[in-house]
């Protein structure tokens, strides 16, 4: 069964490659990718179609529900949603909703702090 990951990704050095690596190297087979740069050129809207890689028996596939939290760890990821490819409906994360708050943006805003050290 295939799924679609919908990701809002801040444009930064290597961000797209990092995203695809995080999916492809973690047990998921990428079936298709589309990416579009936002009009202000600040972020990509990315759709990744994938299915869990099928290891030899008796081992199980990685659960697709874990992938959003895995992708959300990437610093450039601003938003991530998992959809079932068939229904296009969002898939709930595991663990009683515990993972719903997985992504917390903590990045410092661009320069403008208080400690002046050269003026």
């Amino acid at each position, binding site marked *: 069964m295939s799924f679609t990951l919908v990701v809002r990704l801040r444009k930064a*050095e*290597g961000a797209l*490659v*990092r995203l695809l*690596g995080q999916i492809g*190297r973690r047990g998921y087979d990428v079936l298709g990718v589309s990416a579009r740069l936002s009009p202000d050129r600040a972020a990509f809207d990315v759709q990744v179609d994938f299915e869990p890689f099928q290891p030899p028996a*008796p081992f199980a596939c*990685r*659960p697709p*529900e*874990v992938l959003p*939290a*895995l992708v*959300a*760890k*990437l*610093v450039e990821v601003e938003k991530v949603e998992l959809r079932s490819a068939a229904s296009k409906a969002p898939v709930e994360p*595991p*663990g*009683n*909703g*515990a*993972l*719903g*708050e*997985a992504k*917390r943006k*903590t*990045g*410092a805003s*661009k*320069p*403008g*702090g*208080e*400690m*002046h*050290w*050269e*003026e």
Partner: protein
Amino acid sequence: MPQAEVPGASIVCRALEAEGVDYIFGYPGGAIMPFYDAIVGAKFKHILVRHEQGAAFAANGYARASGRVGVCVATSGPGTTNLVTGIADAFMDSVPVVAITGQVRSHLIGTDAFQEVDIFGITLPIVKHSFLVRRVDDLPYVMKEAFRIARSGRPGPVLVDIPRDVQEAEAKHLRLLPRNLEEERPPAPSKESIERAVQLLKECRKPIVYAGGGVGMANAVEEFRGFIKATQIPVVHTLKGLGTLPYSDPLFLGMLGMHGFKQSNLAVQECDLLICIGARFDDRATGVLAKFAPNAKVIHMDVDASEVGKLRKAEAGVAGDIRPALKALTFPLPQIAAWREECLESKKQYAWKYNAPGDGVYVPAMLKELGDRADEKTIITCDVGQHQMWVAQHYGFRRPELHLTSGGSGAMGFGLPAAIGAALGRPDCRVICVSGDGSIMMNIQEMATLKRYNIPVKILLVDNQALGMVRQWQELFFAKKYSEIDLWDNPDFVRLSEAFGVPAFFLRERKDVPKAIDRLLKEPGPLLAHVSIEQAANVWPLVPPAKSNAEMVIEDHNK
């Protein structure tokens, strides 16, 4: 008034000072020369290692021991690729390290220039994050972010790759951003997940706590110990979790997994509730995953939400800061008394006997004596192989930060440079590196670093003239067909050590162990003890490949 122009290399230097960095570990070269020019007179001290891998491991050891971010530096090309193993190790074991690398000039990137390597691309899968700095004006932000990312949430390595022209370029209007501790706190777990975990605890009869390195990294050791004291749940630890509950605590059953103790593995197999805290169901801990804790429901607590449910379904996934989670779960469980007694009886029954026959040094007994006699300010670093497992089983750790071992990546060569970093990061502690004759040769050049800075690291070198763990597996699982494990032609380690300027001594007899430990614990300065043991010595217990943890094998005299 005219504004001063600041070169990029100085910005990096000032940013390190602002982060409170006291030591960095590195090796200069062409593309990083502006940085090396800028650090002359810096507030931090640069430790010149003899190989960049030593720098990465030293930064790693510094970070693990001190709890602060470790910093390593290398030039472009081979300098950066030599860092890779150490960066991967920091990634696998979640260690906060910032690796600063020089890169060829911006206009040469992508032209196969001299000493050009795409280290940004090479390290993508083994860093928490990475930067290739294109503009000098970005450096203050990048440096601040690198440190914040390295230490926040689940820690990890961050690479900052800086082209030489960016190091040389001058910038105006620069501000050093303040460190904001508040933003680094991980989110609290959801109320629903805590409620579900509380419910599972109230319903259980045979619980086991399976705790890993994440507890110590979250600075949650006291909360953890409070949780265990209140609930009285028996505890097993992963390799990296050792010391979270002290070895001497009656409720600590031992390490679990491939070389775990029988009572630990049996308890996990029989439990009805597995409370996994800061661990990740690593294959060395679980054996065959499908047969691991087969009757248990699972509470999985981790700061990294992507670990929850990754390998084992959790009935309660508690993602976020484990400290408030542990506090919320701290209440008595009177219904588990019979199970606890069963576990403690099993611990007595399978206690290690330390009764190996012979007069030669018996490493488990030697390490137990070392652990018994060392104080709470003794840090042990390990290399990888049989000695690493003997240390884990027998030393008896009191705190997790006193045990520095390459757990996830299993990198031979880790021990000595990590000990150098630990000794500088924790000058109040004694540091002993337990190594093997295979491992020590992988970074033997750092003996020169010990001597140069007179770093008082003690080395306990366990020498069986073989790649012992591989030899053991070939004996047990490859029909004694020994292939490329014989190190009969090792150098004379005492003379080699002395050639580096580090005093050394040799022992082979069991009766000489107490005196050797005296010297390791009491002599000032660096020192190497070369311990010769039988090549045939094996690590027991052992879970054979493709077996469950219940099917472990134990040597005869410990049955």
